[in-house]
């Protein structure tokens, strides 16, 4: 059975200017021990999906669909049960650990906090566990007494990871875990996550704008655009031979790390992501699509099978007219290039 199963998830923000659809029907599945990557530009709804998995969105967000975590629907859980599931069932590694950690508490206390809350252990035991976790992520246990600002960016992200492991969850959601870090540290953190996830047999959902990072780390890959998954399949294949024009553009982007422009606008892709309050008719990618046709204005494509284990939301996929571009370099070497 899948550990995480998301069915037709919708997230709509209530605003003064009317409802704002941020996520418009997303299906995802994560098998035990497997790793799913979600890629997309800023504002495509991928972080919203991450927060929706544990119902962490602000009150103005209205959620629909189902989020089954180990068979239980998170969206209809009672508050008490939800609090018990949070962190113990699934934990999150947030982007920007500087802000995700509380500046006025020692990191040891912050790691021990969920252990105390969910584990029913003594303070001393929780503190010992926190020290162990720090050592697992490559920090001396004595650093537990440090405050977040006394650590470097990479060290803080390690603390975040230690914290995510604290309650031995079966799923970790990593939301842009390496975005704020420089390239060398990024690689270290990715390897660390990879190792720990493997050691503990944890499933993972990793979210990033960087397709190459995801292809390197994950088993399966979902590409999101304007609140929907537009392409999905085995990571290496989606990266090497994307079927959806957006997947192709995103793959071609090779965003330069640390360059905000490349994050917002993959190279070769004109225009901005659509305003969720005023989505174009038909295919929402149409205005930016290089191969858009007349019928794209009328058909709003959903995910169609596009080869074994693959799906894509493009009319050309349905026709079979789409041809995968010549297979590009394998992900591993591609990642080397960006480094």
């Amino acid at each position, binding site marked *: 059975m899948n550990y995480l199963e998301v069915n037709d998830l919708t997230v709509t923000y209530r605003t003064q200017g009317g409802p704002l659809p941020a996520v418009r029907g997303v299906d995802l599945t994560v098998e035990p021990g497997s790793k799913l990557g979600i890629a997309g530009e800023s504002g495509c709804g991928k972080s919203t999906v991450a927060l929706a998995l544990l119902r962490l969105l602000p009150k103005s967000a209205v959620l629909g669909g189902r989020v089954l975590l180990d068979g239980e629907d998170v969206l209809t859980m009672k508050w008490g049960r939800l609090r018990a599931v949070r962190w113990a069932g699934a934990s999150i590694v947030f982007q920007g650990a500087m802000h995700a*950690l509380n500046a006025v508490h*020692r990191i040891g206390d912050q790691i*021990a906090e969920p252990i105390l809350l969910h584990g029913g252990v003594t303070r*001393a035991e929780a503190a010992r566990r926190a*020290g162990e976790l720090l050592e697992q992520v490559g920090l001396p246990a004595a650093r537990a*007494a*440090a405050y977040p600002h006394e650590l470097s960016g990479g060290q803080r992200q390690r603390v975040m990871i230690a914290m995510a492991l604290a309650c031995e969850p079966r799923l970790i959601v990593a939301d842009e875990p390496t975005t704020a870090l420089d390239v060398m540290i990024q690689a270290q953190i990715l390897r660390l996550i990879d190792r720990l996830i493997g050691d503990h047999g944890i499933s993972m959902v990793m979210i990033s704008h960087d397709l190459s990072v995801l292809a390197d780390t994950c088993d399966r890959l979902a590409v999101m655009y304007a609140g929907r998954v537009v392409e999905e399949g085995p990571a290496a294949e989606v990266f090497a031979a994307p079927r959806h024009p957006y997947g192709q553009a995103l793959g071609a982007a090779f965003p330069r790390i640390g360059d905000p422009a490349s994050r917002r606008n993959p190279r070769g892709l004109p225009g901005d992501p659509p305003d969720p309050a005023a989505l174009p008719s038909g295919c929402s990618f149409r205005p930016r699509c290089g191969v858009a046709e007349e019928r794209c204005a009328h058909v709003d494509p959903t995910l169609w099978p596009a080869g074994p284990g693959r799906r894509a939301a493009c009319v050309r996929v349905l026709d079979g007219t789409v041809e995968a571009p010549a297979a590009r370099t394998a992900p591993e070497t591609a990642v080397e290039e960006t480094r």
Partner: protein
Amino acid sequence: MTGTQAPVTAAAGSAPDRGGEGRPGRGKALRYIAGRLLTSLLSLVAVMFTAFFLFRILPGDPVRAMTEGRSVSVEQMEELRRQFGLDKPLPQQFVDYCLGLLRFDLGVSYQYRVPVVELIADRLWPTVLLSGTGTLLAALLGLWLGTRSAWRRGSVSDRVNSGVALTLWSVPTFWFGLILIVLLASGADLFPTGGMMTPGTTGAVAVTLDVAHHMVLPVATMVAVLYAQYLMIMRSSLLDEMGGDYLVTARAKGLRDALVLRRHAVPNALLPAVTLIFLNIGLVASGAILVETVFSWPGLGTLFYEALSVPDLPLVQALFIFFSAAVILMNLVADLVYPLLDPRVRS
């Protein structure tokens, strides 16, 4: 701080020496303290200059100002000038004044004919008692209501809270006190109209109760006028924190909302709030003058008011220096306490 977790990490110190980097050096801390002390000292010197300018130079002839409206002969005025040292040239006066200050000699009251330092010492404790109680209660009330307001921003209780606070803030202190007296003291006869003690009360318990009874209305007045400021500070400080990512982390960990607020949001929001509260302590001096005047509380405020109406310039000058010095001292305390509260500033 409320809700700050006790450090659970004490037991985790398996490798005591490795985590030591990034701690502030002792020398650095000493330099910080020395710097703050120096700044305060400079401020005090500036107060000294201002006081001299205000009370010796600005009035032209201080003796004439003090005796205005009274029948005082030219000889008596000469005598007064000699007594206050005003017959000497200004530079000489200034030197005498500075030397006097160094010996805590602030001159002799024109009205009481005793050293003003004695008068101040006599009246100091009632003021400390009243203002201390008032400030403490106002700060607690303001911080508590401000926290509630921010947490439920836009709710009815937030709007009522903010509205009441703003209204009370707009009300002049002295008038609020007068109305309380009319309603609850001279009207309903629940509380005394003024003073600090019923004459003839004896016994520690009886005296304490009597003083507390006398304190209710003045403290209520002070709190009513002061707490709004604290409420607004805490409210906006907490609202600044509300968007913080670390609060999402806290909720993701499965903490209930009350704990997220108490353990995570409030300690962060308190830091700027506490600083501003200390910086606003100058309000307390002003509040004390008015509240004491209205309730005839035998403290420095009443002394100040009495000195004004004479005007007893040496006493006014001494109290001016005293009130200013108190504020400077409070600011120094804030500067020294803040690093203890905020780990970010500590290093």
